[in-house]
């Protein structure tokens, strides 16, 4: 069997998005466009208290003054923000006691995604809060969590039920004026997840949300807030898929993590939004702001597997404010066809003896562009700060690109910073070697890619690692999946 680079390329091009279906659920969608009335209407729709409405309006004011950033290594047609509908919720707002009451078509969608609630419910140790078109429709395992004092609910519910926590922390890590998309999100966020782990509590299960964009032309503005109180621990999983659509869909999420003294947050993401077809038409614009704050001895780990979206702009970051705090970033970003990804992290060392680790693995195929952009900043008071960064790129074919933009700013002489970078290519010799041992080309590529990504895959929780490995294969291969 011949397997030249030419053929490999062709095969990669013909891989269609396998979750490209569209669920026809009655939706309650706002007219296109954004103004103060829309912002107020969203807030009203969500039955929010006045302080929240005012916060949104303030954000909207800030956003109006801002311009869309252009520094990222991505090219795309800027969204027309007046041509987007800013709210869409499944029409029959569910307040279900059991799954039987959930819209069967919705359940069917989840089944197609391979995440049927039935299955999820049985999966011991995983509670699922599903966000579909911006409104949480089901939360399981809530009771078990409640017994430990853990709050895991939609952000809308948290605004109503736990205003003191939301008021204190919302916008504390990602301020409204942080950037263009964060300001937009603050004004119009539709829903998202909220999680609070009380002092000294170790969350007994992986908390998991599945996001899904479903309504044509609807922007998705998720807002996530995770607070780990002193000495607590939580592992949070976020996974995404989206149906095929012709026009670009905008996604501008904000995730804020707060790790108080001696606590630990592990945040894992598998992102598989529609990347556009092989001509580069359609696909999700993914402009996300994710940031965590570490107090004394706290630790935040970001792990991400990014295989989807037409354009990705995403930098999960850590502010290492407390002494001895630790920030970690483990990332695999796969781009194929015309996908563009500009992703990386920022590690801001403010406290003494703070440590950060960055492992980034970029895999590019087709005509895609894959960039790592990272900032390691050591403040003047951050004595003995340490960072280790490693950025590896794997190229498939001759038409894709891999870029690395590491920025290092050090204002303290005791800092130790290490940076390593490599670029490699899957060679015909590697493929032939595998073939000779009886491993076909498709399997060989999966093996090589998995080997390349191993350090990051190992950081994912078990069930997520399996899903992620499958996604890598789907994203890069012709017939697997």
């Amino acid at each position: 069997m011949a397997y030249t680079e030419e053929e490999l390329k062709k095969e990669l091009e013909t891989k269609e998005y396998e979750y490209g279906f569209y669920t026809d659920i009655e939706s309650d969608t706002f007219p296109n466009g954004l103004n103060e009335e829309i912002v107020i209407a969203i807030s009203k729709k969500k039955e929010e208290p006045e302080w929240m409405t005012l916060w949104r309006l303030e954000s909207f004011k800030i956003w109006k003054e801002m311009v869309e950033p252009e520094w990222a290594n991505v090219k795309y047609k800027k969204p027309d923000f007046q041509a987007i509908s800013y709210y869409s919720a499944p029409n029959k707002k569910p307040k279900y006691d059991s799954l039987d009451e959930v819209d069967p078509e919705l359940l069917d969608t989840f089944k197609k995604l391979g995440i049927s609630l039935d299955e999820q419910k049985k999966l011991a140790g995983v509670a699922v809060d599903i966000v579909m078109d911006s409104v949480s429709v089901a939360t399981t395992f809530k009771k078990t969590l409640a017994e430990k004092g853990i709050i895991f609910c939609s952000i809308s519910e948290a605004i109503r039920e736990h205003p003191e926590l939301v008021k204190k922390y919302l916008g504390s890590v990602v301020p409204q004026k942080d950037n263009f998309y964060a300001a937009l999100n603050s004004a119009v966020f539709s829903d998202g997840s909220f999680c609070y782990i009380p002092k000294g509590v170790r969350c007994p299960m992986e908390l998991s949300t599945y996001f899904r964009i479903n309504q044509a032309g609807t922007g998705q503005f998720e807002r996530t807030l995770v607070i780990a109180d002193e000495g607590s621990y939580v592992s949070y999983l976020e996974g995404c898929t989206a149906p095929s659509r012709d026009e670009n869909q905008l996604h501008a999420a904000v995730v804020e993590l707060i790790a108080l003294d001696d606590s630990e947050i592990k945040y894992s993401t598998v992102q598989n939004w529609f990347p556009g077809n092989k001509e580069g038409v359609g696909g999700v614009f993914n402009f996300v702001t994710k940031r965590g704050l570490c107090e004394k001895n706290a630790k935040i780990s970001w792990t991400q597997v990014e295989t989807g979206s037409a354009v990705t702009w995403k930098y999960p970051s850590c502010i290492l404010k407390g002494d001895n705090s630790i920030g970690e970033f483990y990332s695999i970003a796969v781009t194929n066809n015309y996908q563009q990804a500009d992703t990386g992290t920022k590690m801001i060392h403010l406290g003494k003896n703070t440590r950060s680790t960055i492992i980034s693995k970029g895999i590019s195929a087709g005509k895609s562009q894959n960039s790592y952009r990272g900032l390691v900043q050591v403040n003047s008071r951050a004595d003995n700060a340490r960072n280790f960064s490693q950025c590896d790129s794997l190229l498939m074919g001759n038409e894709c690109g891999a870029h690395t933009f590491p920025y290092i700013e050090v204002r303290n002489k005791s800092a130790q910073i290490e940076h390593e970078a490599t670029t490699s290519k899957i060679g015909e010799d590697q493929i032939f070697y595998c073939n000779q041992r009886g491993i076909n080309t498709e399997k060989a590529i999966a093996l090589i890619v998995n080997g390349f990504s191993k350090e990051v895959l190992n950081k994912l929780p078990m069930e997520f690692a399996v899903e992620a490995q499958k996604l890598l294969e789907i994203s890069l291969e012709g017939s697997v999946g």
Partner: protein
Amino acid sequence: MLKINNLHARVEDKEILRGINLTVNAGEVHAIMGPNGSGKSTLAAVIAGKEEFEITEGEVYLEGENLDETSPEDRAHKGIFLSFQYPVEIPGVSVTNFMKTAINESRKAKGLDDMPAKDMLKLIREKSEMLEIDRKFLSRSLNEGFSGGEKKRNEIFQMAMLEPKLAILDETDSGLDIDALRIVANGVNKLKSKDNAVIVITHYQRLLEYIVPDFVHVLHNGKIVKSGTKDLALELEEKGYDWLKQETVV
């Protein structure tokens, strides 16, 4: 076992094999010797099915079956094994994981289920002891940071694991010190049986003191110019290849 008939092969415009005839029966060991650039490694790669080379004339048969349309992985499933002169590195994939994948892919091709983990472990233990391989070595990334000798020993370990019908050792002796050479040769000898065959490609007669060939062939300019018994190897060691080159010209 293996029958090669008037085999011509080229890469791009360059003809490398110019009419090879070779028959290897089960239970035999054949040595192929010859100066640099005579086509030894090309012959090995063509038997293994490397696509880079275009066969312009002639055929390769394995147990009576023409391999013309057979992919490299199917040839492997049928029992052809090539010990590479320059084994490639696959970062992040451990020797164990690689072997597990290779064995299970071969089993899948034969309609068998995956080898149970217990049997796999037993096999690994047995073969690594035979080749005096440290178990820690097996959890390292395939060939990454291996010394020349480690790479070659790893090739023979894979051969032991896969138990091929026809093993082709392409300059397995290069880069081996005398102790490693003895271990590798012992391994090959232990794996030899009346049902399988070995083709040893080498520059030197040194390896042939350990793996004793039934036949020795000299390759020059893409052709076998002389065949004989193991004494031919000794003669070559003494006289070099020049006298053969001259003979061919005449």
